[in-house]
């Protein structure tokens, strides 16, 4: 039994239990546009033969840091009927931004740029979170501090550019 399979299973288990725990503990669901820092712009692309990707960016956030690298995360929800792709990202605080993934090999974590643009399937979502995908912010002019805001411009294949504001905060494994 290898690490990959197990960590995959565990992540599934964790997600399932977290969902159960959430219900059991009586937390309520997020609604659109609640608390500060949740930018949820919805952009409809111009229809191509009736196929439209409708994207919503949920919970953008960036990690506070002491040096010149950091990571940003968010979830992209696609309520349309066409698959979209995240082609590139820019940020106002960084001159070098890449979409990265963490690859686990036998208990070893390796960070690298994604090989192909990440997809947001029709009716599905793309989740960026610690241990999975992140937006790598490099060559920061100064370290990101809690309370600061990072402006991210996400460029999608069908939906074009979407700007979001990501508050800088401390980020844990599960939230």
């Amino acid at each position, binding site marked *: *039994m*290898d*690490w990959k399979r*197990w*960590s995959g299973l*565990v*992540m599934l*288990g*964790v997600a*399932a*239990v*977290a969902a*159960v*725990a959430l219900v*059991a*503990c009586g937390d309520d669901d997020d609604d659109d546009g609640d608390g500060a820092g949740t930018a949820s712009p919805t952009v409809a692309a111009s229809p191509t033969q009736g196929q439209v990707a409708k994207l919503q960016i949920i919970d953008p956030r960036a*990690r*506070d*840091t*002491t*040096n010149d*690298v*950091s*990571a940003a995360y968010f979830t992209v929800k696609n309520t349309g009927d066409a698959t979209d792709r995240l082609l590139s990202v820019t940020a106002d605080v960084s001159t*070098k931004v*890449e979409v*990265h993934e*963490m690859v*686990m*090999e*036998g*208990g*070893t*974590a*390796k*960070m*690298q*740029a994604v090989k192909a643009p990440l997809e947001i399937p029709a009716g599905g979502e793309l989740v960026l979170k*610690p*241990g999975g995908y*992140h937006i*790598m*912010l*490099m*060559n920061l002019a100064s370290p990101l501090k809690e309370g600061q805001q990072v402006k991210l411009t996400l460029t999608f294949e069908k939906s074009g550019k979407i700007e979001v504001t990501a508050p800088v905060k*401390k*980020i*844990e*494994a*599960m939230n």
Partner: protein
Amino acid sequence: MRTIRPGLVFLLLALAGFAAAACGGDDGDEGGGASSIDDYLGAQVTPFFEKPDLVLTDTEGRPFDIRKDTEGFLTILYVGYTHCPDICPTTMYDISEVLKTLTEKQRSQIKVVFATADPDRDTPEVIRKWLDHFDTTFIGLSGDSRQISDLLKQLLMGTPQRTDLGEGNYAVSHAAYAIAYTKDNTGRLVYPFGITQDDWKHDLPMLVNETWK
């Protein structure tokens, strides 16, 4: 069976226990460790890890004998690098938050040790600044590249691989888990990435008193 060859890690998450912990069940301060290793949410390692027999340099520039200077403490050891934007800071932050929830007595029995897999960039000063961000009591270790490869060899972690990211940036591969050495100096449990604050909260109070008897 729950055994695996050294260097690889087997993960066992008792999901029922996890759900209970998520709703805030609290463990007592006193009363020994768990009745069985299966009560822990950490992943079991067989055979267990020994503490590395090595002297590195702490963030004050002083020699740090990993065995001698952690003797008698529950010791959480993590190898990473400060230019890691994702899982290293997540792990350190999660541990630091959970330590705040422990009693003073529990907390005083724990040492958290971060050792760098990237000695070229991670000088004692760089590590100190980074660790202070999480907890000023965290111990940070560096050394020359020969010492670091000795450390990784003893931990069965393999040589760090560099991935060039351009413009002078690079990523470093490293183990995606923290090792918990109980006071008997054995590392029988590791905490792979994906472990949550609630999992740590569940295990640490028991680990502090664990004797594996």
